[in-house]
């Protein structure tokens, strides 16, 4: 039985993956070249699969858990809600997000719920490709032409404060830690992520100002960004037309 506070923690990851998968899918058919189109769509599909696996665990009706909650009950971070209509923005987000997601799944490998540890193991097999894809493209762009460097570095700089809010804790995190239900705090995971991104970008001579305090965005406690309602309307368009439709 998954208690309410741990449920919030898992919803944060599941809701992120649902929104991220949807946002990635918006590049279907319009990514910069064919192979990337397929790769990006596949990655988005993987993220939807991760969301689904967690939703299945959290309720017997996946569609109701995914699309039947009011937006205020979503626990997604604001990063995944951004439209990212320029390719360099989508790439920067993919990179920052998947490096973080890997660290978050790794922290679930020793979950007290065996089913969650199982989902984490499976997800990590897919994340290895996501990270290889994101990191390799990122490095190529940053060490490519003057223009590719400028555009991608600018996208990273504009996005990383929002990305950082990915590690805002859910409401009852301290209780979960005290009870031993969570073994690592979001602050600890955030630091691991910063170290990982710093090392990765350092290899191509890019540094971000991590000293600046993270902005409190509140995604994990139910505050939705200005972009959520458009995203929500699109994601729930089918359910709105046919409430019995299933994922």
């Amino acid at each position, binding site marked *: 039985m998954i208690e309410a506070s741990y449920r919030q923690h898992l919803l944060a990851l599941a809701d992120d993956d649902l929104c991220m998968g949807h946002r990635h899918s918006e590049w279907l058919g319009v990514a910069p*070249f*064919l*192979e*990337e189109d*397929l*790769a990006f*769509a*596949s990655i988005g599909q993987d993220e939807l699969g991760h969301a689904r696996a967690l939703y299945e665990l959290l309720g017997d009706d996946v569609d109701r858990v995914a699309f039947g909650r009011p937006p205020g009950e979503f626990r997604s971070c604001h990063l995944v809600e951004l439209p990212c209509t320029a390719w360099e923005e989508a790439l920067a987000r993919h990179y920052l997000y998947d490096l973080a997601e890997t660290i978050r799944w790794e922290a679930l490998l020793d979950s007290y719920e065996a089913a969650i540890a199982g989902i984490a193991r499976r997800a990590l097999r897919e994340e290895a*490709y996501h990270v*290889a*894809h994101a990191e*390799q*493209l990122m490095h*190529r762009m940053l060490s490519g032409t003057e223009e590719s460097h400028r555009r991608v570095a600018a996208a990273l700089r504009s996005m990383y404060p929002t990305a950082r809010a990915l590690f805002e804790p859910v409401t009852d995190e301290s209780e979960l830690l005290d009870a031993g239900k969570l073994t690592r705090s979001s602050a600890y995971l955030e630091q691991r992520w910063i170290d990982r991104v710093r090392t990765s970008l350092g290899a191509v001579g890019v540094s971000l100002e991590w000293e600046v305090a993270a902005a409190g965005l509140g995604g994990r406690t139910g505050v939705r960004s200005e972009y959520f309602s458009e995203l929500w309307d699109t994601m729930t368009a089918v359910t709105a037309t046919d409430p019995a439709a299933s994922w």
Partner: protein
Amino acid sequence: MKVYEVFLKKAGKTPFEHAGSLEAPDAEMAKLLSRETYTRRAEGDEMWLVPRDAIVAVGEDWIAPNEDKPHRHNDGAELAARRRQLREAAAETGGGG
């Protein structure tokens, strides 16, 4: 950019087969981009990525003179029929075989 020819092979005693091609600046990128383009539905268990310029292409002008030599197309059917006939004849006469 270079063109890489993609070959896929299923597990077991099956040969590599040509699946298509893709453009990539180098081998690492070819590896990265070929995965979802050619194996997202598990079409193969092994993949070869061969730079097109590593392929020695040989055309019709060189091969065509071999087209009209039916005597080289022995499919073994005639020989098999003759062996069967001899076996049957041997069985009828009760001879060893």
